């Protein structure tokens, strides 16, 4: 139960950073925190009380392992997350070279 609280807290604080912060690197940090929160949420959904890791060696029975499916999904999500972060940050570097600011309000072309 405490894991759900941690995951919900990370998602909420990520959305807070995305909504209220003006600095673009701060926004990407919020996105990264939200990523961790979603991963934690999926993994804690797959946990079973008293289960062991899903590696069937040394006499571990199939009845006593935790759910391996969320772990496989999260494994790919972690790698995707870092590549998205790198792409966002390189766009920010490009924007900084042009406008000399990280404040998203001062970047004229991002207003609408």
């Amino acid at each position, binding site marked *: 139960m405490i894991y759900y*609280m*941690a995951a919900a807290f990370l998602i909420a604080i990520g959305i807070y950073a995305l909504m209220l912060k003006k600095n673009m690197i*701060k926004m990407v*940090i919020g996105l*990264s925190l939200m990523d961790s929160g979603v*991963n934690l949420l999926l993994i804690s959904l797959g946990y079973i009380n008293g289960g062991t890791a899903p590696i069937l060696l040394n006499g571990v029975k199939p009845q006593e392992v935790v759910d391996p499916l969320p772990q496989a999904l999260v494994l790919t999500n972690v790698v995707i997350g870092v590549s998205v*972060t790198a792409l966002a940050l390189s766009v920010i570097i490009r924007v900084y070279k042009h406008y000399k600011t990280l404040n998203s309000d001062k970047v004229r072309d991002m207003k609408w």
Partner: protein
Amino acid sequence: MILTIAVAILILMMMVFAVYSVETKDLLYAVVGTMAVSLIVSILFYVLQAPDVAMAEAAIGAGISTAVFVIAIKKTERYEHD
């Protein structure tokens, strides 16, 4: 029981680091806070019996991701202005 208390302390620390990394004006400190969150999340993955994901999060979230952020801050600016 001891494990539950340890996990509770870890989650409390994680919340403090998350708030700190969102609220501080120095972006380099914020990135270190994010790295601490990633590291604690990877310990939680291990406690939740997901060693594969714990390994990936420790190597990628706390290693490569932090390096990418630090490089980006070095190429732009370090302090957040209002």
